[in-house]
C-alpha cells in the first residue's frame, strides 16, 4: 500500500516486493519485473503489477510484433499521429473520412463462440465511434476446421450467430466477409471482426487527455469482474469461488452499445469532450494511461467512483476488468453536466471519476488510499521490445519441391468441378450472410455475394466498397508471396465492382512467435504485405496481431487477413459478378508481364498454377507447391483497366478468378445470373490446369458484343490481354478445352451443389 501523508502531495512508498510466482502468473518475466522496479524506484503494489502486466502484454504492448510492424510506414504514423489513435482514417473527398479497423477475438471465441464473437464485434465498433465516426459497416473473416466435425460445426454455428446478434441489434449492416475451412483451424478457429465508419474530417475526435484540471468521465455499462486476466486466478487474494467470481469470458450487451454509439456521437457535438477512448483490452488501465501518455499529462482517478456490478471489487479488479460497452471521456472543466446529460438521456452511466493532472503520473485512489502511482508513458509506450529469432521452417523444402506434373488428370471434369463448388470454402456463403442484417441504414448498393460489397455515401455521388481476403494456404507455402496475393486479391475484388483501392487494415494471426519458424512466417508475411501495400499505394492505417494460435497438435497457417477500402466515383456505375443477359460475350482479362522475351511469357497457364490450389487440396488432399506467381505491376494494370471499363459502362459483369480457378469463376457468374454459358479455352497445358489453376491477375467479364470495340481500345491502352471465351446463353454450363467438351452440366445442378454445400452440412444431418 502507498500512503499519502495528510495534507501533502508526497507519498511514502513502503511497498514490499511482489513474489515471483504472482507476477509470473500475470505473464511478466523476471527482467520485466526488474524494469518496473527501476521505473518506479521501488517495488510495485499488487494493483500496479497488474496494470503493467496487461499493458506490457503482447496484446496491448506489441512487444514482439512492434519492430516488424514498423515496416508499415503509414501504420506507424497512424499509431503515433495525433488524432488517429484508435483507428486510422482515409480521406474520400467531399470532407469525409472513412475510419476502419479489424481485430481478432480468436481465443474468447474458442471458449464461448457466441459471446466471444459478439464481443469481438462490440469491441471493434467502439474503436470506430470513439473517433467520432458513425459505424456504417461490419465485415468478418472466419476460419474453422472441417464441418464434418461436430465441434467445428458448433463453433461455426455460434460464431455466426454471435456476430449476427450483435451487429443486427446495434443496426450496423454486416456487408461482407470470408469463411475458410481447413484442418489447421480445428481447435484454433479464427474470428476477425472488422468495422468501418464515416466521419467529417473536421470532426474527428481525439484520444488525448488534454487540459490540466479537466474531468475524467466514465460512461456506459457498469464494471464487473469479467474478462480479468485469466492468469491471475492463482493469486493470493482469491477465494475458492474464483472461477465463478471472475469468469474469463465477457458477455456483451449490444443494446448498451447501440445507446453508447448514439450518445457518444451526440456528446461529441456538445464540443465539450476534449478526448475520448473506448475501454477495450485492459479496460480502465489502458484508457487512462494511453490518453494521458498521448497528451503528456497525468491523471488522478478514484476506483470507488466507478459504477460496479459486483460488490467488494478490489482496485486491481476494477482496473483490469474488461467489462464491455464502456468509454472514458475527458471533459472540459465546468461542463461535466452538459456532457453527462447526453449519456443519461440515453439511459447510460456517466460519472466523474477523476481529473487530468500535469505530472505525467496515473494516480489510482481507492477513497483516500493511494493504490497506484505510475508514469503514464511507462505503461503506454515503454513496453519492452523483443527482437525474436527467425528461422526458415523445415517443411518448406519438402512442400516446395513437390512435383506438380505428377498429378493425374481427373476421370471426369464435371465431377471435379462439382467437388470444388461443393467444397465449403468455395461454396455459397449465403447460409452465413442471410443471418446478418446487411441492409439496415439503407445504403447497401452491392449486397453480399459479390466480389466486394458497396455502400453509397449520401450527399455525394460516391460509393465505397469493402472486402477482406486472405489465402492461408498460399501463406503457408510462402508467407511473403501469400501476403502479397492477399493484398492483390483484395484490390482485385474491389476493381471487379468498379472501386479503386484506397487503404488497408489488417488482422494477422499466427502460432507461437517464440518459435523461430513461426516468427519467420510472421516477418515474411508482414514484409510481403508492406511491400504490396506500398506498390498499390494503399496505406495500412490500422491493424491487429494475434499470436499463439496453436494447440499441441497443430498450428494454423499464417493467416494475415487484409481488409481493404475502395472508392467508386459514381455510385450508379458499379458492377457485379453475375451474368446479366443472353448473348453477352464472355471474356477473360489477364494482367500479363510485358516482355519481349517470349520464353518468359507464362502462356495461358502453367502447371505451377496448381500450387497451393483448392483443386489440389480437394481432389488430392495435397497442400504443396508454390503459390501462383504475382506480378504486381501487371495486377495494377488489370485493376485500372477494369475500373475504367466499369465506369464507362462497358461491362455487364466482372468477377475475379481466385480459389478454384477459371472454371469456378465462370460457374459463379453463371449461377448468380441463372444463365448458361458456352466457353472454349485454348491452352498449352492440361485441362485441369486450364480449368482449376489459380493464376493471378485475372477476371472473368461479360459484355454486350457491340461494346467489344471500345473494350479493345481499353485493353490495348493498359496492355491487358483479353481472351474471348464464349457467350452467355441457354441453361447449360459448358466448357471446351482445346476443342474437347470437358464440362457440360445444367446450371441448375451446379447451383444446387454450390448453394447446398454448407446448409447440408449444418442442418441436413440426421
Amino acid at each position, binding site marked *: 500500500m502507498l500512503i499519502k501523508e495528510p495534507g501533502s502531495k508526497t507519498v511514502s512508498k513502503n511497498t514490499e516486493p511482489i513474489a515471483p510466482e504472482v507476477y509470473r502468473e500475470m505473464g511478466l518475466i523476471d527482467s520485466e519485473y526488474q524494469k518496473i522496479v527501476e521505473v518506479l524506484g521501488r517495488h510495485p503494489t499488487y494493483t500496479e503489477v497488474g496494470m503493467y502486466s496487461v499493458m506490457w502484454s503482447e496484446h496491448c504492448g506489441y512487444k514482439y510484433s512492434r519492430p516488424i510492424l514498423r515496416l508499415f510506414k503509414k501504420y506507424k504514423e497512424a499509431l503515433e499521429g495525433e488524432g488517429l489513435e484508435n483507428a486510422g482514417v482515409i480521406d474520400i473527398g467531399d470532407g469525409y473520412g472513412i475510419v476502419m479497423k479489424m481485430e481478432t477475438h480468436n481465443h474468447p471465441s474458442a471458449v464461448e463462440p457466441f459471446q466471444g464473437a459478439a464481443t469481438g464485434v462490440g469491441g471493434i465498433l467502439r474503436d470506430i465511434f470513439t473517433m467520432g465516426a458513425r459505424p456504417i459497416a461490419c465485415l468478418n473473416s472466419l476460419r474453422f476446421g472441417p464441418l464434418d466435425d461436430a465441434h467445428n460445426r458448433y463453433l461455426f454455428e455460434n460464431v455466426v*450467430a454471435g456476430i*449476427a*446478434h450483435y451487429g*443486427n*441489434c*446495434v*443496426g450496423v449492416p454486416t456487408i461482407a466477409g470470408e469463411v475458410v475451412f481447413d484442418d489447421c483451424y480445428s481447435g484454433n478457429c479464427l474470428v476477425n471482426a472488422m468495422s468501418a465508419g464515416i466521419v467529417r474530417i473536421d470532426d474527428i475526435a481525439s484520444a488525448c487527455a488534454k487540459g490540466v484540471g479537466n474531468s475524467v468521465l466514465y460512461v456506459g455499462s457498469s464494471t464487473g469482474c469479467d474478462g480479468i486476466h485469466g492468469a491471475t486466478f492463482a493469486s493470493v487474494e482469491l477465494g475458492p469461488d474464483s472461477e465463478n467470481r471472475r469468469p474469463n469470458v465477457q458477455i456483451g*450487451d*449490444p*443494446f448498451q452499445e*447501440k*445507446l453508447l454509439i*448514439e450518445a457518444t456521437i451526440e456528446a461529441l457535438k456538445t464540443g465539450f469532450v476534449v478526448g475520448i477512448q473506448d475501454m477495450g483490452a485492459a479496460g480502465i488501465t489502458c484508457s487512462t494511461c494511453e490518453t494521458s501518455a498521448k497528451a503528456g499529462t497525468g491523471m488522478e482517478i478514484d476506483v470507488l467512483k466507478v459504477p460496479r456490478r459486483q460488490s467488494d471489487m478490489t482496485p486491481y479488479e476494477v482496473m483490469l476488468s474488461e467489462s464491455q460497452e464502456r468509454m472514458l471521456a475527458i471533459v472540459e472543466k465546468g461542463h461535466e453536466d452538459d456532457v453527462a446529460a447526453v449519456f443519461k438521456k*440515453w*439511459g447510460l452511466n456517466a460519472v466523474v471519476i477523476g481529473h487530468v493532472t500535469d505530472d505525467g503520473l496515473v494516480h489510482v485512489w481507492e477513497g483516500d488510499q493511494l493504490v497506484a502511482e505510475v508514469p503514464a508513458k511507462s505503461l503506454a509506450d515503454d513496453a519492452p521490445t523483443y527482437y525474436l529469432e527467425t528461422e526458415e521452417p523445415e517443411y518448406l523444402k519438402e512442400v516446395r519441391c513437390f512435383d506438380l506434373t505428377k498429378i493425374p488428370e481427373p476421370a471426369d471434369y464435371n465431377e471435379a468441378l462439382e467437388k470444388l463448388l461443393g467444397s465449403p470454402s468455395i461454396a455459397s456463403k449465403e447460409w452465413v*450472410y*442471410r*443471418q*446478418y*442484417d*446487411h*441492409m*439496415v*441504414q*439503407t445504403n*447497401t*448498393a452491392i*449486397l453480399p455475394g459479390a466480389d466486394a460489397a458497396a455502400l*453509397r455515401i*449520401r450527399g455525394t455521388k460516391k460509393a465505397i466498397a469493402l472486402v477482406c481476403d486472405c489465402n492461408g494456404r498460399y501463406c503457408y507455402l510462402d508467407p511473403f508471396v501469400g501476403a502479397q496475393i492477399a493484398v492483390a486479391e483484395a484490390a482485385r475484388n474491389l476493381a471487379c465492382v468498379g472501386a479503386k483501392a484506397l487503404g488497408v487494415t489488417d488482422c494477422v494471426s499466427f502460432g507461437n512467435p517464440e518459435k523461430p519458424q513461426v516468427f519467420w512466417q510472421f516477418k515474411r508475411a508482414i514484409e510481403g504485405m508492406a511491400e504490396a501495400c506500398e506498390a498499390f499505394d494503399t496505406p495500412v492505417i490500422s491493424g491487429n496481431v494475434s499470436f499463439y494460435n496453436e494447440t499441441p497438435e497443430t498450428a494454423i497457417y499464417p493467416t494475415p487477413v487484409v481488409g481493404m477500402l475502395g472508392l467508386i466515383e459514381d*455510385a*450508379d456505375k458499379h458492377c457485379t459478378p453475375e451474368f446479366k443477359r443472353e448473348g453477352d460475350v464472355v471474356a477473360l482479362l489477364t494482367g500479363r508481364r510485358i516482355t519481349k522475351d517470349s520464353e518468359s511469357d507464362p502462356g495461358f497457364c502453367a502447371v505451377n498454377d496448381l500450387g497451393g490450389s483448392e483443386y489440389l487440396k480437394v481432389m488430392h488432399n495435397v497442400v504443396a507447391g508454390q503459390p501462383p506467381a504475382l506480378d504486381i505491376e501487371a495486377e495494377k494494370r488489370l485493376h485500372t483497366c477494369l475500373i475504367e471499363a466499369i465506369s464507362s459502362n462497358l461491362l455487364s459483369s466482372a468477377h475475379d478468378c481466385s480459389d478454384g480457378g477459371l472454371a469456378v469463376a465462370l460457374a459463379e457468374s453463371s449461377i448468380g445470373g441463372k444463365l448458361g454459358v458456352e466457353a472454349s479455352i485454348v491452352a498449352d497445358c492440361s485441362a485441369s490446369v486450364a480449368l482449376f489453376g489459380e493464376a493471378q491477375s485475372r477476371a472473368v467479364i461479360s459484355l454486350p458484343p457491340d461494346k467489344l470495340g471500345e473494350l479493345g481500345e481499353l485493353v490495348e491502352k493498359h496492355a491487358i490481354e483479353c481472351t474471348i471465351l464464349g457467350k452467355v446463353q441457354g441453361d447449360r454450363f459448358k466448357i471446351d478445352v482445346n476443342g474437347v467438351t470437358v464440362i457440360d452440366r445444367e446450371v441448375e445442378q451446379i447451383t444446387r451443389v454450390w448453394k447446398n454445400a454448407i446448409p447440408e452440412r449444418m442442418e441436413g444431418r440426421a
Partner: protein
Amino acid sequence: MKFGVIVFPGSNCDQDAYYAVRDVLKEPVEYIWHQEHDLKGVDCVIVPGGFSYGDYLRTGAVARFSPVMEAVKEHTDKGGYAIGICNGFQILCEAHLLPGALVSNDCLKFVCKYVQLTPANLNTPWTNQCKNGQVLNIPIAHQGGNFVCDQETLKRIEDNGQVILRYCDEAGRVTPEANPNGSLNNIAGVINERGNVAGMMPHPERAVEKILGSADGLNILRSVIEWARR
C-alpha cells in the same frame, strides 16, 4: 401528410424511415422520442424496426409500456394512422393494437433478404397504390417474424380482409416455399379492424430507391398519403 417516426433507444430503422419519408417521398416528418407523451400533431405514426429496449424477454414486450405508446394508442383510437414495421409490428401486436403475435422464425435464425409479397386486399390505407396481382420486391430482416394467432382470430382477420400482404414467389404464387419464417397463411402484414393501424414484417423503407435494389416499398408508403387525400 405529416409523419412521425418513434424513436426507442434501440430503434435502428428510425433513421431509414425518416430518410424515406423526407428525402424520397418529400413529406414532412419528425422524430418522436419514446418518453414523449405528445405526438406533435402528426397524421401517420411509423413505429420503426430495431430492438426497442434491447428486445429482451420478448420482442416488443417492454416497448409497449413506454409513454409514447400511450399517445400512439390515443392517436389510433381517434382514427389516426399508424404502421409498425418489423419490430414496430411486434410492438403493436404486444400493445394489442393489432391481432396475433410474432414468434421465432421456424428456422430459428435471423433472416435478411429480399422477399416477394402479394397484396391480399387492395382496399386499405396501406395497399391502395398496389395493383391486383402485383408482386412487390421488399426485404425482410428479422428473427421473430412468424405470425401466429388462434384459429378463430385467423378466420376473423381473413374474412374481414385484415390480411394485407402475403409472402409469395416470383410469379405471385403463395406457396410454403415462399414463406420465409413459418407465418400462418404466409401472412406478412395485417391491419386492425378499422384499417387505420397496420403492421408488416418486411421493410418498405428499405425499398425506396433503385440503387438499393427496389423502390416497391413506396407503394405502401404512398398508399396512406393517397388514402388520406381522398
